[in-house]
């Protein structure tokens, strides 16, 4: 799970991570619209995928 710090969905994002098998979470800058375009989002996904 990865979420923008200012995204209204962040309120229950940790619960989503907890609901997923072996779920982990990361927070990146931005709201729902802007977080989608951040290099931090790319980096968070890459880190997660590389950690196999």
């Amino acid at each position, binding site marked *: *799970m*990865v*979420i*923008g710090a200012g*995204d*209204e*969905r*962040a*309120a*229950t*994002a940790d*619960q*989503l991570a907890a*609901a*997923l098998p072996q779920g982990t979470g990361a927070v990146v800058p931005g709201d*729902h619209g802007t*977080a*989608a*375009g*951040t*290099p931090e*989002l*790319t980096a968070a*996904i*890459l880190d*997660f*995928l*590389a950690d*196999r």
Partner: protein
Amino acid sequence: MPDPDVSYFSGRDGVRLAYREVGRGRPLVLLHGITGDSTMWLRYGHAETFAAHGRRVIMPDFRGHGRSAKPHDAACYPPDVLAEDALALLDHLALDDYDLGGYSLGARMVVRTLVRGATPGRAVVAGQGLHQVLGLGGGAGSLLRRVFAGSGSFEPGSPEEQTDRWLRSGGADPVALLHVLDSVVPTPMESSAASRCRRSW
């Protein structure tokens, strides 16, 4: 922005669906958000970066979006149809060892695709919360329904007005998008084979 060729496959009901690919390596299937398309992964450099790290990045357009068909027949949007389309793409590409991710609606569809039997090595749910995944409201769907219901009548500068203006400028198809929203349900019918969708592109 990279501009890879658009390829097509068929949903299980015959609807024509689009996807783009960049890179080579372990497959990573990425699902976009509502009203967007696969270019969201290309526009901000995500796909290029993943490809540079040895990934084959596969980015479908949901039905009702982008280069995929946008049928206006509600029967083409049974519950969980977007997740079924993602499963159809995995079958089409014969992927069995891959990762799967999505942003916003795409993240909800990652969850639905898992529930419906997908087995990615890793799953990324981005820009989504449990409240929305459980279908308890909030999120882009609620905003879009307000915009579609009252188009042209919003306070300047409000999220509704901005979204309305953006939808009008972007060539989005409100009829198709409303059907898409209706297909997103927390407790779907599990029988997509009952779809009465008429072939349409």
